[in-house]
């Protein structure tokens, strides 16, 4: 799938906004939101938050995890752990990109946050590449990927599954070529014994 499609899925997550207008409840197909009260925080899907922000009708409240200290802790945990740690948010990269892109002025220390999130992403991606390498070298055709987010999984999709497909094909070809040679030898033996 395209990274934009993952972003599209991530846009359905709820974020908190503070609208600067007052309006009744709105009944969308994906649920009802509101009532909008100027100055009071409320939850809306991310796509709606970005849209309202672009129309300058709200401020986006930074999600709890989008905080320097919290992110530093995650970064340290990610560095020390051999495995992937659980991210505070299944679509952290999408949320960070969209919120920091559309509403950087609503987030305190947006620049630093961007850098830390990028660091976390880089650590996780290099870990992912190492584990892919190990998986391929061990000739495995099964792997467990807990705590990886959709965007991270998607980034290895052009490579990992097809490499594993090819490996499997080679393994089954190897098996097939060994077996017939055994068969033919047993055939010729039985054939010759019949002739005699």
């Amino acid at each position, binding site marked *: *799938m395209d990274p934009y*499609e993952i972003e*599209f*899925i991530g846009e*359905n997550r709820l974020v908190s906004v503070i609208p600067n*207008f007052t*309006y*009744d*409840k*709105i*009944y*969308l*197909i*994906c*649920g009802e939101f509101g009532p909008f009260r100027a100055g009071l925080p409320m939850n809306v899907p991310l*796509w*709606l938050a970005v*849209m309202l922000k672009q*129309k300058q*009708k709200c401020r986006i409240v930074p999600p709890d995890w989008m905080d320097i200290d919290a992110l530093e802790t995650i970064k340290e945990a990610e560095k020390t752990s051999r495995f992937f740690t659980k991210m505070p948010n299944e679509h952290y990269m999408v949320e960070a990109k969209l919120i920091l892109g559309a509403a950087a002025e609503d987030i305190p220390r947006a620049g630093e946050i961007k850098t830390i999130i990028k660091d976390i992403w880089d650590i996780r991606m290099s870990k992912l590449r190492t584990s892919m390498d190990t998986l391929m070298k061990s000739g495995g*055709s*099964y*792997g*467990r*990927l*807990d*705590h*990886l987010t*959709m965007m991270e*999984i998607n980034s290895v*999709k052009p490579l*990992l*599954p*097809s490499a*594993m*497909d090819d490996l*499997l*094909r080679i*393994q*089954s070809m*190897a*098996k097939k070529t060994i077996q017939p040679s055994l068969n033919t030898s047993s055939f010729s033996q039985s054939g010759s014994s019949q002739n005699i």
Partner: protein
Amino acid sequence: MDFNDQIESSGDEEEITAEAVLKTLYNAWQNERLSPEILPHCNEMVECMLGQIQHMERNINKLPKTDLRASIHKMELSRIKYIICNYLRARLCKIEKHCIPIINEERQRIESGTNYLTPSEYKYAQEYLLNMEGHFKSVVLDKVPGNMQTFEMNKMAIYPNLQSHVFLKANETVNGVVLDLPGEQDEEIDLEEGSQHILLYKPVADLVKSGKVQLI
């Protein structure tokens, strides 16, 4: 107010909420995009959502153009339409690619009443095959010596590769999924609820169809 009331009442008529239908469509779209073979259709959901969209569009037209609600609703509808179009297109793509095996398998499934294609998709598949055959005949086969003129359906068939690897997340715990690997003894694994894996599509194909796992 009138606008909101109408939408609410239309939601009440359905046994499941529009929200739940949308969720199902999202999952079906994701599965369809990521699985190597065609999956059972969810036409009822698509039809239901299209009905909702039409209803919503009629109501939006009653609102003044500059109304904020109108633009929010329009945005949501565009998003849903995108999902539906993309879902149906992904299915048509597979139907065109694996046309011959799909028609053959579908014939048996129709007899047992477990069809994967909607009637119109089935018709599309059959017409596509006929057109393809006609095209090959008029372009090549009619012009070659008589003993080579037969259209060999089986040699033309492209089968979906069920031995490909997919990523999945377990919606519920499934124990004892058997991975039949070549050259090794069968390995059994357990999929715990919420866990994520990469493995062969074939052993989990039924779990995808029954919704016990979600492709990611």
